[in-house]
């Protein structure tokens, strides 16, 4: 690696050394309590798949370039120089971590390995060793936003073409069934590219009599997976600007954990409220704005808490409230809520493909699903849904994997 590149990486590292990062890098006692927290380690017991194992790669670089110890006694902390071999270790650490932060619930200090991995991802971008697919997806996302004026008419037409499918779920909506970027709406709903993320949500909001409108932007933020904070801000900012322009009171984020956490906690502050779509459903049920048939599901239902929505987003009881209106035949996964096993598809792994690693590293998740003996598993996150579907197929679990919004839309009392 050239000296100039090393210097550039050192500067990139330095730029991310805020107070929390320094505390995380300095406090770890390598006690090993976090070891069993990671689904990857639980499925493939190797030190490199532990939270501390991943963080140590970054910590050893930190010692080398930013600590006295690394200058006078590098052997003490077994420091690592920024070279190609180290970058391979950095890549292995960064892209085997889903950023689920389950390890934080084990660590006596609460060290955030996802945050430490943001250094790893930043270094990989600086060394031009990041996964190019995610760079491409991030750039495409930015470009789509920049060219929105050209695609808006086609997008609006495509949405109107969904009217029949939305009416099939809730026939009493006025015309148009969906408005796009309508000023004066109370709620701006930000969906994903697929119609599966629009149809059930539209039916539910129409059934609740919500004054809502659809964003022209996608909620997904590939730059957050990539670890490119500037692009992440650009992608989130345009939703912010759209919401401000339309003067909405709330932005409801589609069932996508990362999109929700990025919008609610990692960007902002916003002059509007940010909610996960499942929170909106729960509110409609509480206020009696929608009612659900409790006999629409065949078989036992279980719920997978998406990491970014539950332990990292605080939306834990709302999905259970919704499920309470859907069925009496519900069983919890063990563990659940804040301690639920990660699905193994987060952090960009589903977007990257990585089928082999995802299946092997999530064996413990498949075992957890199987142990529930449920017939249906539901969740409120696109990534989790994709990963659970793959696990279901790979391990032959014979379950149905459903979005919670779809179950609700199918059970609407008409």
């Amino acid at each position, binding site marked *: 690696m050239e000296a100039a590149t090393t210097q550039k990486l050192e500067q990139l590292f330095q730029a991310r050394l*805020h107070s929390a990062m320094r*505390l*995380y890098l300095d406090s770890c006692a390598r006690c090993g309590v976090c070891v069993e927290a990671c689904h990857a380690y639980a499925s493939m017991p190797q030190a490199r798949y532990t939270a501390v194992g991943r963080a140590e790669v970054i910590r050893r670089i930190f010692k080398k370039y930013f600590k006295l110890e690394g200058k006078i006694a590098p052997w003490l902390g077994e420091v690592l120089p920024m070279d190609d071999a180290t970058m391979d270790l950095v890549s292995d650490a960064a892209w085997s971590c889903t950023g689920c932060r389950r390890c934080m619930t084990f660590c006596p200090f609460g060290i955030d390995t996802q945050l430490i991995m943001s250094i790893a991802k930043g270094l990989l971008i600086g060394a031009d060793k990041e996964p190019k697919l995610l760079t491409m997806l991030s750039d495409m996302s930015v470009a789509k936003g920049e060219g929105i004026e050209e695609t808006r008419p086609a997008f609006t037409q495509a949405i109107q073409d969904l009217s029949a499918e939305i009416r099939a779920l809730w026939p009493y909506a006025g015309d148009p069934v969906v408005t796009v970027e309508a000023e004066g709406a109370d709620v701006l709903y930000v969906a994903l590219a697929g119609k599966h993320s629009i149809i059930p949500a539209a039916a539910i909001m129409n059934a609740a009599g919500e004054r809502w409108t659809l964003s022209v932007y996608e909620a997904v933020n590939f730059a957050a997976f990539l670890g490119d904070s500037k692009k992440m801000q650009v992608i989130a900012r345009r939703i912010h600007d759209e919401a401000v322009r339309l003067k909405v009171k709330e932005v409801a984020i589609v069932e996508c954990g990362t999109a929700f956490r990025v919008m609610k906690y990692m960007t902002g502050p916003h002059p509007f409220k940010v909610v996960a779509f499942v929170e909106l459903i729960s509110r409609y049920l509480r206020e009696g704005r929608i009612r659900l048939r409790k006999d629409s599901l065949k078989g036992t239902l279980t719920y997978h808490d998406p990491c970014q929505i539950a332990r990292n987003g605080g939306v834990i009881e709302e999905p259970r409230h919704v499920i309470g209106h859907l069925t009496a035949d519900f069983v919890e996964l063990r563990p659940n809520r804040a301690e639920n096993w990660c699905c193994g598809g987060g952090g960009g792994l589903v977007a990257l493909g990585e089928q082999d690693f995802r299946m092997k590293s999530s064996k413990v998740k498949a075992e957890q699903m199987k142990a529930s003996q449920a017939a249906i598993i539901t969740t409120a996150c696109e990534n989790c849904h994709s990963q659970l579907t793959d696990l279901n197929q790979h391990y032959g679990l014979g379950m149905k994997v459903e979005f919670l919004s779809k179950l609700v839309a199918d059970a609407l009392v008409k």
Partner: protein
Amino acid sequence: MAAQAGADVVTAASAAAGAAVADATSAASQVVHTGFALVVDRIDYIIMVPLVYVSILALLAGIIWRIAVIMRSPPPPYPLRLYPAARRPGLAALGDTFAMPQVRKHKPLFWVFLMIYHVAFVLLILGHLDILPHVSLLPPDSRHMLGAGGVGIAVTLPLIYFLMRRLRSPQRDISVFSDYLLLLLLLFLFLFGDMMSWGNSWSPHGFVMSKQDFAKYFDDLARFTFADPRAVLPGSHYHFAVIHVLLAEVFFIVLPFSKIIHTFFSVPVNMLRRR
């Protein structure tokens, strides 16, 4: 009557033995050393007096510097809290720090040793403060230190467990050289401390060096007299005391620059996930 007579005999014997030790010490301190013995005397003195001040200064300066670096760094770009959110984040962070519920839940045996170790460490600090003049946690005439040696054992045994634990996978796989070095430093520091506080009472005549002797040494340090401690710390155990003090000094100097800085960072770092 017979019991009283027996007690008198023991007291007399003890007094005689004490006088013998004092005489021997006095004689030893009056011996003029030359050659290698003189070099050892000089090194002992440097360790027991000037280096104590230097190491304490280094400890304080190091801690202040480390805290200043954290405080001067920019804040994190977004909140790092975990859910469900604590109603009282400050109290929750204190609970995380001092009760370590995460460890209790996932590694109960490790937690037992950690709790014994940390509580005993606090008592250890109090025990050393008790030696200082004008600080009286125990009656001034007590020949024992706080815990009568039990505190030393309570830090030593967990440390042996920590070391054994670290030698096994998966802890071994995530450990670095300094982890073992720190554990060994502390282990030997405590073992020599145990000799001072406990082992040195095993001689046929009772304490070789009592708490009162250490108090005289601490008093001299506190008053910056720069007197030679050999004059107040009697007997052949003096070299154990020198090694104990030397290891403590290394510990003080290393602390701010090692992972033991978690002593000071635990509360703020735990606040991050609770706030």
